[in-house]
C-alpha cells in the first residue's frame, strides 16, 4: 500500500550535422513528490568513416529514486 506521484518531461533532438556526422542530445526532467527533482541528459554522436563503417559514442547521466516503501 504505497504511492508516489511524479511529473517528468523529456525532449530529444537528432540531426545530421554534416554528410558524415550525426549528433543527438536528450534531456529529461523529473520531479518526485516529497523526494526532490532531477535533470539528466544524454549526448551522442555517430561519424561515418565510409559508407559502410561508422564509429559512435555517447555520454549520459542517470538517476534512480529509492522504492516508495523505503521512504523517509
Amino acid at each position, binding site marked *: 500500500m504505497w504511492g508516489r506521484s511524479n511529473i517528468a518531461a523529456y525532449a530529444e533532438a537528432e540531426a545530421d550535422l554534416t554528410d558524415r556526422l550525426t549528433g543527438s542530445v536528450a534531456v529529461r526532467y523529473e520531479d518526485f513528490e516529497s523526494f526532490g527533482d532531477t535533470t539528466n541528459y544524454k549526448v551522442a554522436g555517430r561519424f561515418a568513416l565510409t559508407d559502410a*563503417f561508422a564509429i559512435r559514442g555517447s555520454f549520459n547521466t542517470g538517476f534512480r529514486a*529509492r522504492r516508495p516503501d523505503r521512504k523517509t
Partner: protein
Amino acid sequence: MTKVSTILVNGELSQSGQIPPTNPLALALGGGPLGPEESVGYSAGFVWDFTDQLSLTVDYFNINVDDRIAFTGSIDITAENPDDYPELDCPNAKANPVGTLALCLQSSAYGCGGPFLGHLLYQRLRNDHSGR
C-alpha cells in the same frame, strides 16, 4: 517497512529483522533518510555494414553508480544498553532491569509490537558511497 523473522545464528534460534533507515532505532545507530542513486555512463563503438542484410556492431559501455542503496550487514543489538541512547524514547526497555536495545523493537512505535525469543539482530538501509 519493518520485518522480523526467526533464524538460526550459530545453532541458536534468534530474532532477526530489517527496519527502515529512519526508524528511531536506526537513527540512533547512524541511519538516515535515503537519497537517490545517481549514475554517469559513457559508451563508444562502431557499426560495420557488410551487406544490406549483415552488419557487426561493437560497443564498450561503462556506468558508474554513486550512492547505491543496499542492506547493511547484521548489527547485533542484544547487549546494547538503551540508557546509552538517550535520544530514544524506549520506556519498556528502560523500565526493565535487564532491558536491551532489542526490547525497543517490541514497542509499536518502533514497528514491531510482539514478543521476541533469544537475542535480536537487525539490519538497516543506508547510503552506500561507492559501487559499479
